[in-house]
């Protein structure tokens, strides 16, 4: 039986990896994958804590988060497809038509 702390530490590492990914990667799809990593690290933490407190709420939250993530995927990929058709690139550094 692995102690709860390890799961929480793992989830913190995954969350940090997600943040780093968002900040340093330039491809919109990869950025979005990093965001998904952040959401899933939170899911892992929820499951771990639900286990620790021996209750089900944390596990049910994960279902909600997964649904939200799916909705975000649908909208986000649609945005990327439309922008790819206009600009032939989803590199966020090239999204620079808006500058002050």
């Amino acid at each position, binding site marked *: 039986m692995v102690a709860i702390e390890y799961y929480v530490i793992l989830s913190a590492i995954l969350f940090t990896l997600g943040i780093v990914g968002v900040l340093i990667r330039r491809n919109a799809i990869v950025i979005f994958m990093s965001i998904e990593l952040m959401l899933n690290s939170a899911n892992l933490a929820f499951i771990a804590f639900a286990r620790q407190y021996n209750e089900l709420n944390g596990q049910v939250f994960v279902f909600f988060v997964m*649904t939200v993530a*799916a909705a975000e*995927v*649908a909208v986000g*990929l*649609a945005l990327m497809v439309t922008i790819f058709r206009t600009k032939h690139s989803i590199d966020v550094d090239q999204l620079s038509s808006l500058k002050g």
Partner: protein
Amino acid sequence: MLESYYPIAILIGITVGLGILVMGLGHWFGPRRPTQRKNAPYESGMMPYGPGTRQMPIRFYLVAVLFILFDVEVIFLFPWAVVYRELGLFGVIEMAIFIFILLVGFIYALKKGAFEWE
């Protein structure tokens, strides 16, 4: 507590070691005469023509996204199915409302022609 993981650690060690050993044997003792064809990413004795990635028609994307949206909602059916006897009529009504909301989305997609392949 971690003792129970020793067999797995040993297994991983053996697998990795064996992989390195086998590939190393080939690397150290095998003769090498690289040609352009052999260096191709997918070496099959034929010259590759064209890039490996092709653009897919946008219709695939639409179908895939609709699939994800309606597929993920099944998540909520699983916990419901486990306890629906205890929930009784209330549970049935709740799930009927939920499915009805999905149905509205489905009808919308249908009327907007999202399922027409041409």
